[in-house]
């Protein structure tokens, strides 16, 4: 190119749903990446050949451009599929959106709570054809699900009169008005055979859900109580990584054309893939103090504190300060975010204790990281401590392999009373071994624990510098959980030593190493 080469404007714009999250790259004729960004690029370029790549949600669109005049190039965004039944998503259908809207305003169970927040669950297939293909028996989508209270007692099973559903089109709704606090969506698991004849096992899973209330002193909100909305898509079973969670004013319910919901879904999707991107429009809303959607604030804060960016430090300090009044100071969500913010700003870790998991996995992981130096941040023998070595890491939401729900355990205790030795053993390692009864069974189950087997692997391979904190860091669990696991192994070393086909890791040398770091 020389100075006489004419230049022209090239404007490339993504248009359509989720255009904020469409990533555009422009290459010049020599295949050099000359510009990249989200949604729109405004460039002045010499005449020539160019190519444009738009990426969104796994789709890639490529176009060539011959630039000989000012050119405005619009690329429609590809169809987007989401659990959220919003108007402009390809996977939304009126038979879903209408019912989601309707039952978000009408509880499906009657509770004594009038002044409270709510949990609204909406499960569905991507469309009617998928339901016909994957669920020929028209089984209820609520099968295997229960809503538990903060003490893990069943409040509702998602069955019968507790839910509304249409097994023909394939959707299920649940809506309960509930006091502020922590709840757990429990799934007991499912075995099925897929098209290719393979046996599949969807393991049990539990997901903490929070019901929020804003501070009475906060002015200008449409409702101080919030509805936590969960949208989940089914394939052969629930596809948990597709789960979308929103927090809306309780009395407004679900609004299927709320522009903000698209942004939340886009943020979540990028966050899930480790892309810490915050669209300008989202940042602008925060700068203007718009707090219609706390989920957007939470998600944006988690995204920001996960990224190395430092462009909006003041803004996110303000957001972190605003959230306690909006969602409640003592909620796990707010506490975990305070820990994460402190790690991000390299401030001292706040003196607080969590006993329950927050909804965002990033928050739980921050707390686990903090526990290496501040063990008291996780309450001893709490549910949060218990789940730290059972976390699933396949979605942005916290979820874990749960203990059986109380009814199941009681039933087992009734039918299989053990010896006094077994009973005491059962109490000590209940969380690892579940419902096994004899020492041999317990020993074998212990060997199957991923945490135990991996810990023993490290014990065998590492010769120097064995310490609890190093093991905690390798296993990504709190030091207290490492100690307890070691104690469990040692407590059972006698019963384990005679177990047939035991792995080599259970040898005297390793047991002695364990004793040395106990």
């Amino acid at each position, binding site marked *: *190119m020389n100075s006489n*080469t004419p230049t022209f404007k090239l404007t490339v714009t993504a248009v359509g749903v989720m255009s904020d999250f469409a990533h555009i790259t422009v*290459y*010049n*004729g*020599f*295949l*050099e*990446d000359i510009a990249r960004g989200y949604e729109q690029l405004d460039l002045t370029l*010499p*005449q*020539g*050949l*160019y*190519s444009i790549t738009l*990426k969104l949600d*796994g789709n*890639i669109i490529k176009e*060539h451009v*011959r630039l*000989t005049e000012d050119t405005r190039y619009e690329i429609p965004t590809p169809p987007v599929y989401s659990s959220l039944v919003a108007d402009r998503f390809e996977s939304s259908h009126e038979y879903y959106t209408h019912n989601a809207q309707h039952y978000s305003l009408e509880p499906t169970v009657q509770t004594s709570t009038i002044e409270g927040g709510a949990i609204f669950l909406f499960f569905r297939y991507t469309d009617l054809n998928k339901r016909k293909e994957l669920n020929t028996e028209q089984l209820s989508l609520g099968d295997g699900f229960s809503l538990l209270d903060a003490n893990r007692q069943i409040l509702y099973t998602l069955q019968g009169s507790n839910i509304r559903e249409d097994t023909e089109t394939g959707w299920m709704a649940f809506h309960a008005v509930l006091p502020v606090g922590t709840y757990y969506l429990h799934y007991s698991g499912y075995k099925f055979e897929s098209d290719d004849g393979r046996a599949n096992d969807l*393991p049990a899973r539990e997901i903490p859900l929070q019901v929020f209330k804003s501070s009475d002193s906060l002015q200008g909100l449409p409702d101080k109580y919030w509805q936590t909305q969960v949208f989940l898509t089914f394939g052969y079973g629930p596809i948990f*990584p597709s789960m979308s969670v929103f927090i809306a004013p309780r009395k407004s319910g679900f609004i299927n054309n709320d522009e903000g919901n698209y942004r939340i879904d886009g943020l979540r999707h990028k966050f*899930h*893939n*480790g892309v810490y991107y915050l669209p300008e429009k989202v940042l602008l809303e925060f700068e203007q103090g718009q707090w219609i959607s706390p989920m957007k604030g939470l998600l944006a804060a988690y995204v920001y504190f996960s990224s190395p960016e430092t462009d909006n430090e003041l803004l996110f300090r303000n957001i972190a300060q605003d959230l306690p009044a909006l969602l409640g100071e003592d909620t796990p969500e707010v506490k975990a975010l305070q820990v994460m913010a402190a790690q991000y700003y390299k401030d001292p870790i706040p003196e607080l204790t969590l006993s329950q998991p927050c909804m965002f996995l990033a928050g739980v992981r921050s707390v686990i990281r903090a526990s290496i130096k501040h063990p008291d941040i996780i309450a001893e023998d709490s549910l949060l401590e218990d789940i730290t070595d*059972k*976390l*699933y*890491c*396949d979605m942005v939401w916290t979820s874990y*392999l749960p203990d059986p729900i109380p009814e199941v355990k009681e039933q087992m205790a009734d039918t299989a009373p053990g010896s006094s030795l077994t009973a005491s053993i059962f109490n000590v390692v209940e969380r690892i071994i579940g419902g096994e009864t004899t020492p041999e069974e317990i020993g074998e189950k212990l060997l199957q624990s*991923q*945490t135990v*087997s*991996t810990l023993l*692997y*490290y014990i065998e*391979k*590492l010769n*120097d*510098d064995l310490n609890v904190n*190093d093991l905690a860091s*390798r*296993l*990504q669990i709190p030091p207290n959980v490492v100690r307890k696991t070691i104690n469990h192994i040692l407590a059972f070393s006698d019963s384990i030593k005679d177990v047939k086909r035991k792995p080599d890791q259970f040898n005297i040398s390793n047991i002695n190493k364990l004793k040395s770091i106990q």
Partner: protein
Amino acid sequence: MSPKPLVSEAPLPPTTGPCEEVTNENLIKGLPVNEQDYAIIVGISHYTSLAQLNAPVTDACRLRNWLIKADGGNLHPQHVFFIPSAPGSNIPDQLAIDKALSDILQLAEAKPARRLYFYFSGHGFGANWEVNGMCLPIWSPSFYNAALSSKAYLDLLVEKDLFKEVYFFLDSCRDRKINTKPLHSMLGGPRPGGANTMAVVMYASEYENPAWEGMMNNNGNLQVHGYFSRALLEALNGGAVNNSGDITITSFLDYIREKTETYAKEKNHTQTVRSDIRNNSYGLDYVIHKTGRTPGTVLTIRFKTGGDISLDGPDLSNIKSGVVQAGESWLIPLGKGYHQITDKISKRSSFITIDGTLKTMIYEF
């Protein structure tokens, strides 16, 4: 301080096994080689319980050979630790990989090091978006955690601060496996924690997605390659050079991303490369490799129909034009870039991409 082993005293890297022997001609001629560069190349095709793969050992060989060649990475052959799997065997295990890493770290502590290449090709899974499990041959549902943590190994290499640059390539699937804890390196110990090492990290696919291998025509040879690894080798062999003959970080990443996507698309797959760069104080135009060659190809254009044809280059300068008859051909040397061929009569137009790797190319219009 106890003396550290010098290059000549270092244990020999594992045998080349299935790789063809290559030498660094600069060593033979007494010319300089990149003594400050090291590589660990792991290719695992053979698994006890998982399906056999065809590409990893082949691709690992190709990268190893490029690294050793004088006009490639120009590494001392003893600095390239090649760790392939073998049929009917459970090797390599974590110890084999950690041993190689340990040897390299010792060498790098003894003498300033510039660069480390870490390459893994084999089965893998995404434990989460930033942790990939690199499956060892014994991986099975019973040995659920018998996989190395990409993040833990990368963190170790960066935090050791012994290298100025680390290039970390993973050609493996990133499909989700839940509740896994891939293994950290056994090389723990105190870490200086400076973390000034620049790390260029490339995953063959996005989190939750598979990385594919397939039969490919490589200049007339049919071989199975990972799409990502093929693009990686092409990039290093000159495909990623800019018009100055340099491979920069940008041109390198762009080329691999683009070509991997293209190869996958040709086989009706989707595969998007994920890259991350840590601690880059050099800028994206930092030159990774100088080739001194201007990229280009000799293109044969065969005309299926007659017309009044015009061929324009990347900056719209006309390269050739004229009336042609059906069956006629043009033979034209073209530089790397986009070109546009147009029939002025029918107004038919098409873009031609010359990526700089192919020595000859035939295009039908």
